[in-house]
């Protein structure tokens, strides 16, 4: 299976990973080989087979809607790249 340069550029945007021009040809080759490998799946007869999302077919566990954790905002913000007045800082979004 071939994966085009345009496909890689599009997926890189979706994945929020900058990909340089020189990396794209290596990725075309590697991703093409990986997709060749996974194309083996198409040979399997999966008619009427239920997809398996969890090995134990578990369902989402519910709990009472109560606060169980203490507030650790300061501890979490202490390890952030940039904060101010209890907020996380990012580059300006709105001019």
């Amino acid at each position, binding site marked *: 299976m071939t994966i085009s340069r345009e496909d890689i550029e599009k997926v890189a945007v979706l994945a929020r990973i900058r990909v340089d021009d020189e990396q794209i040809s290596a990725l075309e080759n590697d991703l093409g080989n990986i997709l060749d490998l*996974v194309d083996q*799946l198409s040979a399997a007869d999966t008619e009427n087979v239920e997809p398996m999302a969890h090995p*134990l077919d578990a369902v989402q566990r519910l709990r009472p809607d109560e606060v169980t954790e203490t507030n650790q905002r300061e501890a979490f913000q202490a390890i952030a790249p940039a904060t101010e007045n209890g907020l996380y800082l990012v580059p300006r979004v709105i001019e």
Partner: protein
Amino acid sequence: MHNKSVAELSRELESGKISSVELTQQFLDRVKQEDTRYNSFITVTEEQALADAKAADEQRAAGNATPWTGVPLAHKDIFCTNGVRTTCGSKMLENFVPPYDATVTANFRRAGAVCLGKTNMDEFAMGSSNEASHFGPVTNPWGLSKGEKRVPGGSSGGSAAAVAARLVPAATATDTGGSIRQPAALCGVTGLKPTYGRVSRYGMIAFASSLDQGGTIARTAEDNALMLNVMAGFDPKDSTSVDRAVPDYTATLNEPLKGLRIGLPKEYFSDQLSPAMEEQVRAAVREYEKLGATVKDVSLPNAKLAIAAYYVIAPAEASANLSRFDGVRYGYRCEDPKDLMDLYTRTRAEGFGTEVKRRILVGTYALSAGYFDAYYLKAQKVRRLIQQDFINAFKDVDVLMSPTTPSPAFALGEKTNDPVTMYLEDIFTIAINLAGVPAMSVPAGFVDGLPVGLQIIGDYFSEARLLNAAHQFQQVTDWHQREPQ
């Protein structure tokens, strides 16, 4: 003292022949002297370890000891440790110091174990050779005396190499597609991947959530049982954790194996296996027959599709899990981003290594519009077929046995340029993760002076039976006692 097992060290501490402070210092000295050869540790926590050892000695003196009180171990650097750097082998988390403990590390802390530090690993647990760590590759202790630099296997290669080199008696590990069993096999130690959900994933940095499972690496099956006694159990903080009673895994180690029914999956004794490897594995199975087991051939007809299904499901889940690394709340951030998109895309391009980026891109592609049904949904259906194979097999046998890996440890750098060839290193282990059943790797011989692992696969929650089978094998063989020079 460094050659003793966890069980033996626990007895030495109990008898008062040595204190935890003395023992911890001995292991720390070994790490300092020897690990320049292996690079098996990312972080060594000397000060904390000695303080914890002192506290453990006081706990023992007060008569409040558990089997782990004062016994040293190391944690794979994927488990968050409160106040101790946790990198997951990545530049992205190079300076990340979590403000909380993973449930697994908290459990060992509570049991009184002394953590010597954090072991090296493939970045975000993506790899089969431990060459994809931001902190450099780990070198397998085996082969070094002949001047050969070989991989320890991945992604728990640091844990396996540290145990094999006697730098620590036991280490935690995780297994998404074989990352406990494969390095255990290549380093000649014993490793257990429990049933999915048996060990809490809380605080274990996620790669592929429906496959990741924390487990154990030590030299003996008995030590793996001692570890699992601490690690296993329900955790309300992990929605995938199973609420089911935990047995004492050491209680059944000595049960006789007479009548144990062993199945040999014919797909795992195929052309991919060298005759020398196959002979070692079949010799191990003959030992089991001498212990009273019976053997029959079984089939896992969909096993051949396991790698293909895995390399859709695991990257798809990885692409979602690793979206949290965006340079905003913690971890690496690029210099002087010009806008928000630049912050995201450059942070992730600079913070992630090649293999991680490759898998995120594959996963994003598989989940993108127009491809979801053909890749992700199809893979999840194939996964059901693979699971059904195991369910059918366990109607007739108690355990399955196979080689853990297709070959012994290969040379550093030998497969780094060909990801697909590297992926095939996990050909005998991946289906087990897709099904969610437990499996072990047990040392079972040597080929060209390098260790060979026997994989023992069990039905859901049959860890006690696996540990019993491995322990009995280790009573009549000494492969697990061999030490790399």
